[in-house]
């Protein structure tokens, strides 16, 4: 029951993802970070098959880094989104990646942006997006309350409303969420919303 959603605000983009790693009826861990920081100004929230999710997002991240070393300048968010979609499309009729992605980025020239990329390589540039069973609730909440050019506080407040809906209405709701933000100062973790704390794990 993975939930990933995101929205664009005034000079920033926000991505929220649940943090449960689930296998059948077992929850492996509740603090899995599903939002990968692609580079200084890009975030990629992903949901889907756990192996594919990690493998594919890391692959995109390394290719984005390679582009920057080869060309001396980073990829734009649009270019990264199109590259990601291209990879998904190429693999689709051979060995599809079962990953749904919400790509958020900030470019100096064009400002914040959000891209919806699903596992069959659909690409849409949007203001708000959501994946998973949680999308039934978060999309509805965002449709009701989203406005263009919200401040960070308003956007996080809306994200919290969505999380509350998911927690109260989804039968197997994930307990914990992570919120990451990207703006002119870069991509970073904003906050966690935890209702269940994992026992601390020694860092590898």
């Amino acid at each position, binding site marked *: 029951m993975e939930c990933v959603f995101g929205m664009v605000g005034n000079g920033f983009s926000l991505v929220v993802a649940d943090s449960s790693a689930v296998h059948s009826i077992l929850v492996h861990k509740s603090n899995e970070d599903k939002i990968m920081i692609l580079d200084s100004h890009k975030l990629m929230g992903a949901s889907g098959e756990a192996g594919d999710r990690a493998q594919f997002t*890391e692959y995109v991240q390394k290719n984005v*880094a390679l582009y920057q*070393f080869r060309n001396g300048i980073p990829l734009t968010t649009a270019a990264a989104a199109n590259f990601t979609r291209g990879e998904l499309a190429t693999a689709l009729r051979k060995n599809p990646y079962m990953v749904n992605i919400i790509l958020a980025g900030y470019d100096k020239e064009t400002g914040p942006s959000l891209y919806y990329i699903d596992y069959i390589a659909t690409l849409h540039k949007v203001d708000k997006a959501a994946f998973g069973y949680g999308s039934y609730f978060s999309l509805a909440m965002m449709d009701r309350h989203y406005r263009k050019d919200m401040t960070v506080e308003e956007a996080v407040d809306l994200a919290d409303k969505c999380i509350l809906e998911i927690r109260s209405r989804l039968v197997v709701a994930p307990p914990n969420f992570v919120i990451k933000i990207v703006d002119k100062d870069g991509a970073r973790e904003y906050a966690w919303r935890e209702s269940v704390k994992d026992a601390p794990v020694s860092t590898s």
Partner: protein
Amino acid sequence: MARYDRAITVFSPDGHLFQVEYAMEAVRKGNAAVGVRGTDTVVLGVEKKSTPKLQDSRSVRKIVNLDDHIALACAGLKADARVLVNKARIECQSHKLTVEDPVTVEYITRYIAGLQQKYTQSGGVRPFGLSTLIIGFDPHTGVPSLYQTDPSGTFSAWKANATGRNSNSIREFLEKNYKETSGQETVKLAIRALLEVVESGGKNIEVALMTKEHGLRQLEEAEIDAVVAEIEAEKAAAEAAKKAQPKET
């Protein structure tokens, strides 16, 4: 002799691979490049032969980064360098993808040297006509390193080294004057070494330094000029002191 220098895969009777040796000749004709390792800084300096007036010098970067913590300079065929650098950059990312760890300087040097060696033992290809100087920091221990590779595919670690034009003179200078340095002192040592064979001035040398915290930083022409001025002043002072000496007896 002539019969043994055509194909790379043929040894000469006295054990030479002529194509590889000719590749090293190509290196000796390339611009001088020097590398110096300090305790917390590693510096690369490259001679810049006079840039044509109409050329945009920013498009000719001689010191390139392979990853956040590794940089490379070379002497020899620059087009061959492009190919090698591209492959090395891919390998740096590929390594991070498969083992979640950045490469060590030794690993990527071994990879580049391995590539260069492969092209000395294949049919229908020629060796890469360049020697590289690779600098970087170990991602875990933070220890700085300097390595050199050559067209035969051998590599080794150095405290300071030079390659390209007049590399012997530069190496002699470094052997005489090397000492453990850090920060700006390392930069000065590298520039002093390069000035042995290059006309002085920020216009004729490209210098970049790498630190653990800030990665690779290319020095601006003005910064290089400032250090060159310092060095010239020190040289002049040393000359004056020497001239003053005999009179004092």
